[in-house]
């Protein structure tokens, strides 16, 4: 069922707010000259509180979400978000803090941030951590900016950043934002960085190497130390895109295997909810020689007092108005305090076991081109169904009919008709078995009744949407004239 927009539900004169009366007799015209005052007021809804609640509850019911069902979105780590994390929403001592409050009135908040910095340092094996980035791509911005400034200070800002062809789109985009040429190198037949190709691509113009590990095929880059040696030999820096950190928690620390910069996605690895696309929280860790390059301010502790340290001589500066997404940090902090080291290891173990189990059960139906050293996700191909006129998109849409969210599709680019599947550690064997059964059924349907897939989804709040029409007849806001 189509739900009208909130604007179409508006009734002239209806209100949904309750404010105290202001007894002051003055009016706006008493304060300002007419020519700066707005003549035509914006078209905003006029609805009651009940109207608004019904409206947003009605549309909310059209969403898939983690408490409703499985979300095997590769690269997104859609694990369950423990509800205790959300205690932050009801504590005024966390939500009602102004960023310009005196430091002695936010000691509890600073302590949480300081401890979280330390926990992330310990997990990643890095020497210093900044929590200022508010998203993965924002962390990448900070990281590549650090790379740029580091080289600039050494007298040669260099021209290239290397990454595998399986890299997230944010890697080349962030490199380009800094004027670096993004060099994508071909992966080898195991889906890993090809060392010889890398050697050929590397010269003194290489500023850094951006690697996701396990990479976006879910494959662990077993030669990462060799890669680091090659990059370091020309003075480059090793950057870990931490989107897939879940797979190595407690077992392998990026700082121990050659990385100079690591980013965190608190909203993936550390269980903070995704909010339909954000807010997330980034975080970035660096080795000793780069610690003064981190964004300021850093949170430090002296004589049992926590404070913001602004004086950092090589700092790249600020990347956010204040200190990052504080409320998201607290959620991650709660989660991490409940895990400890043993909990971290259990995450990695269960994420890897769940993934390998799924892959084992599905690979005969959906070929998996890269199976060696698969960790927390794997990438299957829907290529073989093309002979029946079925695309990966159709498979994805059919999954929606069965109540599952679809995997990430058409990424990474190096697998044709890619289906990138990440179960995470929180899913049970029963859920995985259900998913397996459904996927097998879909593979049979693809052959016996391809139309079923091409016409999918049927059981969702709306049928398959026409994305081309959306671009052709761009309609990005409600038209009040109709």
């Amino acid at each position, binding site marked *: 069922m189509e739900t009208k927009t909130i604007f179409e539900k*508006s009734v002239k004169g209806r209100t949904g*707010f309750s*404010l105290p009366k202001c007894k*002051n007799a003055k009016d*706006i015209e008493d*304060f*300002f000259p007419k020519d700066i005052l707005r003549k035509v007021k*914006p*078209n905003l809804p006029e*609805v009651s509180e009940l109207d608004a609640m019904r409206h*947003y509850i009605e549309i*909310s*019911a*059209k*969403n*898939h979400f*983690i408490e409703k069902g499985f979300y095997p979105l590769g690269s997104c780590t859609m*694990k369950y978000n423990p509800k*205790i994390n*959300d*205690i932050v929403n009801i*504590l005024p001592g966390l*939500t*009602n803090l*102004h960023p310009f409050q005196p430091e002695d009135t936010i000691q509890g*908040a600073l302590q949480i941030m300081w401890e979280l910095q330390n926990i992330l340092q310990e997990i990643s094996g890095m020497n210093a951590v900044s929590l200022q980035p508010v998203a*993965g*791509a924002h962390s990448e911005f900070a990281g590549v900016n650090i790379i740029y400034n580091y080289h600039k200070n050494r007298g040669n800002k260099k021209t290239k950043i290397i990454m595998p062809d399986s890299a997230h789109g944010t890697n*080349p*985009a962030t490199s*380009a934002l800094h*004027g670096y040429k993004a060099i994508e190198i071909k992966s080898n037949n195991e889906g890993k960085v090809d060392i010889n190709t890398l050697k050929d691509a590397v010269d003194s113009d290489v500023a850094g190497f951006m690697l996701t590990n396990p990479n976006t095929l879910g494959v662990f880059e*077993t030669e*990462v130390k060799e890669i680091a040696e090659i990059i370091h030999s020309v003075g480059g820096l090793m950057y870990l895109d931490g989107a897939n950190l879940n797979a190595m928690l407690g077992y*392998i620390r990026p700082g*121990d*295997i050659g990385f100079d910069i690591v980013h965190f996605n608190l909203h993936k690895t550390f269980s903070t909810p995704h909010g*339909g*696309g954000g*807010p997330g929280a980034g975080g970035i860790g660096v080795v000793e020689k780069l610690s003064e390059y981190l964004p300021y301010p850093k949170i430090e502790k002296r004589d049992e007092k926590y404070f913001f340290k602004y004086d950092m001589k090589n700092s790249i500066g*600020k*990347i*956010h*108005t*204040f200190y990052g997404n504080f409320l998201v940090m607290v959620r991650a902090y709660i989660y991490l*305090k*409940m*895990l400890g080291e043993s909990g971290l290891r259990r995450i990695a173990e*269960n994420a890897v076991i769940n993934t390998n189990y799924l892959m*084992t059960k599905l690979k005969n139906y959906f070929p998996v081109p890269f199976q060696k050293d698969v960790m927390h996700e794997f990438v299957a191909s829907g290529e073989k169904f093309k002979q029946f006129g079925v695309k990966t998109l159709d498979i994805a849409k059919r999954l929606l009919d069965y109540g599952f969210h679809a995997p990430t599709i058409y990424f990474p680019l190096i697998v044709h008709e890619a289906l990138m599947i990440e179960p995470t550690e929180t899913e*049970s064997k029963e859920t995985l078995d259900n998913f397996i059964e459904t996927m097998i059924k879909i593979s049979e349907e693809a052959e016996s009744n391809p139309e079923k897939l091409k016409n999918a989804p049927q059981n969702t709040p*709306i*049928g398959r949407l026409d*994305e081309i*029409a*959306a*671009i052709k007849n*761009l*309609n*990005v806001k409600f038209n009040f004239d109709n």
Partner: protein
Amino acid sequence: MPFISNTDEQRKQMLKEIGVDTFADLLNGIPKEYFTKKSLNLSEPLSEMEIAAQISKLSEKNRNTNQIISFLGAGIYDHFVPAAVNYIISRPEFYSAYTPYQAEVSQGTLQFIYEFQTMICELTGMDVANASMYDGATAAAEAILMAIRHNRRKKILISDLIHPSWKEVIKTYTSSLDVAIDYISEKDGKIDIQELKNQIDESVSAVLVQTPNFLGCIEDMKSIDSIVHSDKKALLISAVDPISLMLFNAPSEYNADIVIGEGQVLGNAQNLGGPLLGFFTTKKNFARKMPGRIVGATHDKNGQKGYVLTLQTREQHIRRDNATSNICTNESLCALAATVYIALMGKKGLYEIAKQSTIKAHYLFDKICQLEGFEPANHSQFFKEFAVKTAEEPKEIIEKMKKNGFFAGIDLTPFGYKNQMLIAVTEKRTKNEIDDYVNQLKGKDGN
């Protein structure tokens, strides 16, 4: 172990199906020396009960704005948030959904973003808004990057009266580019129009002006428009407080090309400055040059109306190194808070909030300026925030007022305005609170 469903028995069974004996076997391909040898220096795991108690205790170590009456602003304001806003944003359907990549099971998220885009367009008078940016500062930085992409010019003029943190973020965002930034100085609380006139030339890509500005004053945007647009290619980027737009000319009325701002004021808590809500809007012709996600309306094959992410070929996951921005995750849930807030407040309520904030701020301003040791810092018109010159050092006043239960304001001395204090008033402040505040300030002077 919390948050893991499988039992040891199930894990064993799964390993068997995989064809290995132990978990370690799955890691066989990874060189042994990669594994961490020492145990991590982390505290013992806490139970839910223990961490809940600990977080409560830590939160109580802070003094919050329910306990201390706050006159703090500078970008983050203590506006009232109706209970219904938090009710909706806490619904798991919104709260723990992913980015709406599969449109058919994400219509809730996509529709509210479409409504959010519409509301931002209505407030600003612009044609197209995106789904949100990290905050006002990064929205401003991205606006500048877009202007440079558009006209390929190398110089940016920025009002010296934009938020100081924004200046720093813009500096970071442009640090690796061949771009020069010049600041237009302050003159009596607003930018020096004559200086802007002198600085405009054909090398200027864009002019960024904030109104109300960092000192709370309303800029003369119509004059600024005529100066900036005397050059056909230069873009005017306007940074606005969305609530102020209920009162003052919409940016479209002074021909702004890009309008950005901090949307925290729309139904979001202060959160120690994060999460925030950046918004970004522009003219129709620039839609394909915008950063960030955009939702568009379309239909399914039965003609039913629905929503999808659109113009995705601008974005990093498609366009990679030629993307308009690297942004991926944004502040979607904060945009939902803003959407529900605007729906509840509506045309009348949002106007009332703007009006009450204005009246109360001016009431306080008049009272303070009658006190000995306080005088207006400038003579420009202001919205809900103003600067005063103080005889005593602001930091002393702030310290003493804190002890009396007030966050008195922000010391502007470190920002280059010696002995000035920035004071913000929202509709939340009562007459009693304001009168008490003034009495306490008076006490400071020994009267």
